[in-house]
């Protein structure tokens, strides 16, 4: 964005009022080469090794990995519940590892966090759990707090349960209280530590919808960790794959899911539902006795619903035999990924790739 120095204060002010417009592209978190360790039997074991990540404002950033990969540690560095041994964490250009105690406390008040096991205070009612972070700031009068608590209860649809205790709630309701509590001080960032791992699939869906809704309505940046690719698929814009404390792959979710590079990513993608086990499609076709070239086509966005295959078949005078594939959505993006056998006399694969490319369809030759 090109602005003169004089324009800057004005555009900043606008940014505060319209996060959804100006948010994109503004850097919010930059994790630079952080390393951490934990102690087992008096020995230091590395938990994170030289991790660097960038989270953009307003996006939902997912961190996935198997248990023990360091996900919990990584998300906890973002509010310094875990302090890195080395490296910096810049939030809007400010290194939070260098903050004084007071400053860190006010930073944390603007950084919400929800947990796998909710971590609600069992002795406080739903309303008082949500009131707690408001009380901590000492900035609100009683009437103001009551009003804010009512708003938050309404947001998470728990108004009818305001005077209940956590033990009287279901898991999903508890997590809603956790979300309301995390949002109480109008945070800039929401951290989710396996927020749906203790919930049944249906409840998981409702919590994920709520998080997506909050992200859109409030323009709130969300960083979440999970071991489930489905959570990444339905919620995240970008993802990092963590393996034994190292980021092995990161990028846009559609890119990582449809073209996983690292073996772990491939394994995680294949484990998750409704995706073809395409690892050995070539072998499977050989067993089936199918001859001729095999190509994998990836459609992304609106093109997914266009009759591209038919048009190209007509133009190049070839036939396509779909042998494997899936059409679905990743978050809001429609996609299709199919493997086709190319039929016809000596089809020109290079030309085929070009023509698909012209239609914005990615074409990979699996077998010539």
């Amino acid at each position: 964005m090109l602005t003169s120095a004089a324009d800057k204060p004005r555009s900043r002010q606008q940014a505060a009022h319209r996060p959804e417009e100006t948010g994109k592209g503004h850097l919010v978190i930059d994790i630079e080469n952080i390393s951490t360790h934990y102690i087992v039997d008096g020995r230091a074991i590395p938990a994170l090794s030289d991790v660097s990540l960038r989270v953009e404002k307003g996006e939902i950033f997912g961190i996935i990995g198997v248990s023990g990969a360091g996900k919990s540690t990584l998300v906890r560095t973002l509010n310094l519940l875990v302090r890195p041994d080395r490296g910096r964490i810049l939030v809007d250009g400010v290194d939070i590892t260098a903050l004084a105690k007071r400053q860190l406390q006010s930073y944390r008040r603007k950084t919400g966090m929800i947990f796998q096991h909710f971590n609600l205070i069992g002795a406080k009612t739903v309303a008082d759990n949500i009131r707690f972070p408001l009380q901590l700031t000492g900035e609100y009068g009683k009437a103001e707090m009551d009003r804010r608590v009512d708003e938050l209860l309404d947001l998470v649809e728990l108004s009818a349960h305001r005077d209940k205790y956590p033990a009287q709630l279901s898991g999903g309701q508890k997590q809603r209280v956790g979300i309301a509590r995390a949002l109480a001080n109008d945070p800039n960032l929401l951290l989710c530590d396996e927020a749906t791992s203790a919930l049944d699939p249906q409840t998981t869906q409702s919590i994920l919808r709520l998080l997506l809704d909050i992200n859109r309505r409030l323009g709130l940046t969300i960083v979440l960790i999970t071991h489930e690719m489905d959570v990444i698929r339905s919620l995240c814009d970008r993802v990092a794959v963590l393996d034994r404390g190292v980021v092995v792959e990161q990028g846009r979710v559609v890119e990582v899911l449809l073209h996983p590079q690292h073996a772990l990513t491939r394994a995680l993608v294949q484990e998750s539902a409704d995706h073809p086990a395409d690892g050995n499609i070539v072998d499977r076709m050989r067993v089936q006795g199918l001859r001729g070239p095999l190509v994998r086509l990836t459609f992304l966005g609106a093109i997914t619903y266009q009759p591209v295959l038919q048009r190209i078949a007509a133009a190049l005078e070839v036939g396509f035999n779909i042998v494997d594939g899936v059409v679905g959505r990743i978050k809001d993006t429609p996609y299709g990924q199919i493997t086709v056998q190319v039929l016809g006399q000596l089809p020109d694969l290079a030309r085929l790739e070009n023509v698909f490319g012209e239609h914005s369809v990615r074409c990979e030759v699996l077998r010539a």
Partner: protein
Amino acid sequence: MSPDFLVLFASIGWSDIALATGETLIMVGASLLFTVLFGLPLGIVLFLTSPRQALANAPIYGVLSLLVNLVRSTPFVILLIVLIPVTVTLIGTSIGVPGAIPPLVIGATPFFARLVENVLREVDRGIIEASQAMGATLPQIVFGALLPETLPGLLAAITVTAITLVSYAAMSGVIGGGGLGDLAIRFGYQRFQSEVMVVTVAILLLLVQALQVLGDRLVLHFSHK
């Protein structure tokens, strides 16, 4: 009821017993108040300085822990005698109801503090972590999260301590502490009036029972599990 039985109790000085019961109640009440007043902060400090807690500090925890163990391992009768000069320095006398209170408080405080430490240790770490993540200061975590969360446990600890104080208070009769224990020793033991002993024990039992029922009620009232 046989006439013999009534005759037996006719010799009891009920006004003495009423007076002694009142003294015991005062001793237990006052020493419980001071025990909680000193023991609760001590228990909180023990908890916070213990390994892997917010103020983990091995030397401080080690010293406090040793002091607590020192008092707790000393039989209360010995403690009563050892503390006589301390009591005299503090309040000018070592006998009667006032003279009994300092040794009772000193004897019960480490016991209560250890109970508090254990109760706090039962709190799910996640609650502390969530409070930290919200930007709570340490006092805010202690008073806003830990103490409310452990209120039932703390009430149970106070109940146990109160009952311990009933028996300690009776024991303080040995050094002229006043109350039911004093009565039991002077009449029941030294004058061979067994019936006084029986009545004394019965009243102590009633007192303990009442404290336990009251404590249990309070614990239940404040539990939201």
